[in-house]
């Protein structure tokens, strides 16, 4: 089931990256994204170095370059928002397009800014992908807790992720049932009026809401039955080892160097 598989971003491989303390991975990822964002426009050399680092991590983690590249396309369509920069920033004109009454010209400055936004975003996405592909969700949540994200929020997130799988299955069943009963929509023509279709979708949503509400009641009962009295307790399974500290130091040094290069070279 596709929705279900979508939850499993984690790729189980025996690698030193997988083995790192999740806190280190979370912190390095955030630092990485932060530092990429701080790089100036058109720092191509620095961007390239970051990309090499990303690929190196992907290789060490035995994920394969393909996986990371393929997934990283997710955010690209948002580029539509920024493409206007090419035609609006002042600079040396590269080419001119005639669009009916408009004449729009692409500037070099605009192109640089646009490509920089795009590349920075693309690098950031790849880092985030590396994080979830090498860290199991429960470990990710533990890391958040250790990093002082409020415990209640982390616990709520844990419940959410746990029941996401269940509810996505439920939604898939609902959607399939609707599909089975609406023969017309198979040909691309949807049956019924717009309002009617919206009504059906709304009913499904309402039904899912009620089921979820009842489920949360049953879960609450199951928790109380096992002694829950408002304070959520967990075992703390992670300890920072020497190699975790080393990895953190290494990543920090690399990012600082790239930052310095990016600023001096451009």
């Amino acid at each position: 089931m596709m929705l279900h598989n979508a939850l499993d971003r984690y790729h189980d491989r025996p690698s030193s990256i997988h083995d790192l303390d999740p806190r280190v991975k979370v912190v390095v990822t955030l630092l990485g994204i932060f530092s990429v964002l701080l790089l100036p426009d058109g720092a191509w050399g620095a961007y390239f170095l970051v990309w090499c680092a990303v690929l190196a991590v992907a290789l060490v983690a035995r994920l394969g370059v393909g996986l990371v590249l393929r997934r990283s396309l997710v955010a690209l369509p948002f580029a539509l928002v920024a493409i206007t920069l090419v035609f609006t920033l002042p600079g040396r004109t590269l080419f001119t397009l005639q669009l009916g009454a408009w004449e729009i010209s692409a500037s070099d400055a605009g192109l640089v800014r646009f490509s920089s936004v795009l590349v920075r975003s693309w690098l950031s996405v790849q880092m985030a992908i590396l994080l979830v592909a090498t860290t199991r969700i429960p470990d990710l949540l533990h890391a958040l807790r250790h990093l002082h994200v409020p415990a209640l929020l982390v616990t709520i997130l844990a419940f959410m992720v746990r029941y996401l799988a269940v509810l996505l299955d439920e939604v898939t069943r609902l959607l399939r049932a609707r599909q089975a009963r609406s023969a017309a929509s198979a040909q691309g023509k949807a049956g019924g009026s717009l309002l009617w279709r919206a009504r059906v979708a709304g009913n499904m949503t309402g039904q899912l809401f009620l089921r979820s509400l009842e489920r949360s009641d049953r879960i609450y009962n199951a928790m109380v039955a096992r002694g829950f009295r408002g304070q959520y307790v967990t075992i703390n399974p992670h300890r920072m080892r020497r190699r975790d500290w080393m990895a953190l130091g290494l990543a920090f040094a690399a990012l600082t160097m790239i930052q310095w290069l990016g600023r001096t070279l451009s």
Partner: protein
Amino acid sequence: MNIALLTRLWEEVVVPRMHIPDGFLSMPVALIFWVITVALLLLAIRKTQQQLGERQIPLMGVMAAFIFAAQMINFPIAGGTSGHLLGGVLAAVMLGPWAGMLVMACVIIVQGLLFQDGGLLVMGANIFNMGLVTAALGSLYHGLAARQSKGVRLVVAGVLAWLSVVAGALFTALQLGFSGTSPFAIVVPAMLGVHMLIGIGEGLITMAALAFVMQVRPDLVAAEAVRTGGGRGWVIVGLVIALFVAVLSPIASADPDGLERVAIDMGFEEVAMTPPYELFPDYVIPFLGETPLSTILAGVIGALVVALVAFAVGRLLRQRAAAA
């Protein structure tokens, strides 16, 4: 990448939503919204705990999963586009604004963290646009309509749901503009235009879902049942946001250069590293001259172009998926 998946991504992630990826907001903008969001989120955690007690954890967790799952429910509108739920107003109406905000924040955190749907550094902004704004507008339902007749309540909820999408889009556009990622003159009207259409789907589903619950479990949506109404503060914030959208949308569409100046005055342009934009040849329709009407029209045309491209790409992907 699998074409069917790409199609789905395109339809579900790109077209109807406004999850900003990392890299599209400048550092100051991203940080400002993180600060606002963190403060409110901490408050929301505390408030929902007071209101819900021990039930908070399972209820908020399952409801966040519900919103995430409900966003998958779509319905065909026309020409291959489909209506979707964002769910912020629905959550705020059903659970109250504090819980609604917390639930939406969880949805956005998980979408960003696990699915790379929306960035990490810009997550504060995303939570603000899709969680906080929607919750504030949703609280207007409790403040204004909770005691009215069923029909009035439904209409108010639908209008608020529509408005929440438009408001979220406006804030997204402003953040992008202040970040220097896209000129105000284009991003504001384009985002507003597209989301005024998308918001209709949101409004319709929200109304229908609420109607369903009113019919099946009237006890849940009775005025007294919503103990978690947020109080006057939220209603005021909701009114301010509604007013902000109502006033700023036309202004921003008519006088984007004004926003540009604000951005410059506030020092954002240094960070954006770009001098004042020289817009599309002044971004006007030639024969109308430089009037507000002209700019608005230009915005609408821009929105149409974006919608057309979205439509064409979606069409193309679907054909290839069908062929595969």
